């Protein structure tokens, strides 16, 4: 597991053992801990292998009946 722990809390266990993510821990207004994840460029690349990403785009355009509004780059 290549997870970087930037705080004392672990976000997950994962079967994607090669994936790497930084964990963000912060507190809400009641001082309850909240966790999030940050992926830098290298981690984004690791998390987006081509077949999975291509299939994800195929899925999203299949599900969308039509373009809702102007697209953006």
């Amino acid at each position, binding site marked *: 597991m290549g997870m970087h722990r930037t705080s004392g809390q672990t976000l*997950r266990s*994962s079967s994607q053992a090669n994936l790497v993510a930084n964990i963000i821990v912060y507190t809400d207004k009641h001082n309850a801990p909240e966790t*999030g994840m940050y992926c830098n460029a290298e981690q984004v690349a690791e998390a987006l292998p081509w077949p999975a*990403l*291509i299939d994800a*785009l195929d899925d999203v355009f299949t599900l969308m009946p039509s*373009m809702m509004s*102007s697209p953006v*780059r």
Partner: protein
Amino acid sequence: MNSPIRHHHHLAVSGDPDATLLLMPAWIEDRYLGVKQVNVFPGNTARGEPGLTGHYLLSCARTGRHLAQFEANELTSRRTAAASALASRYLSRDDAEELLMVGAGRMARRLVPAHAAVRSIKRVRVWDLYPESAAALVAELTEQGYSAEQVAADGLREAAGTADIISCATLSQTPLIHGEWLSPGTHVDLVGSFTPAMREADDTVMRRGQVFVDTRAGALAESGDLIDPIASGAIGETDVLADFFDLCAKRHHGRSELDDPDAAITAFKAVGASCEDLAAAITAYERSVD
């Protein structure tokens, strides 16, 4: 899925040119909400700092809870290359083996493996305005196991004539690929030309080719590769046969639906869409958490 118009704001920066803030939201109701923020600060360049930075924020669309943040340049580059590969899946010949990469920059390094993910690419040829850039990419691709070679500065016409797939990712403002060069069965993938002033393909590419786009609204409004040939009368808007919505939903079956599937020239023009960013962010997030 909702993919509204992007927000585009100018910011005054003391002593520097104005900065630009781009906000690109998209969401799937009850599932995910995402927004890409791109900051363009031209004054940074003079200080040796990146002029463009971006990140993507992914939240839960049921609670609003923050889930993840992603560096956006890589996210955008990869989803852009993946969109080209998705188009190739529908539009290039199944037996396509030779890829001509026009441009040897950041996108080229992602487009080659993306295309290779959907077709059995046996040979990659690289052309760039700057031969040293092409040589550097060829060296990298060779190191990665590709059979790659550099195309001479004056060899683009010959290379275009033998390629099965031509992928262009440049900032060119004049056409680089000419339709008269293309052999039957070629698929042309146009990634640059994301403003009306930019061109990568001439009018003949569009006239000879069967034209497809990622989104009609985006490509027809933003790309000089379509705006100019439509303005000149070389093609009309109705010559755009289908977009991703049609292809992915199988309302158009891509190359296999064309009159002569083996010989047809196809041209795909993309300018990107915020739903692609969201799809990429969701994929990265879901692959990272159980």
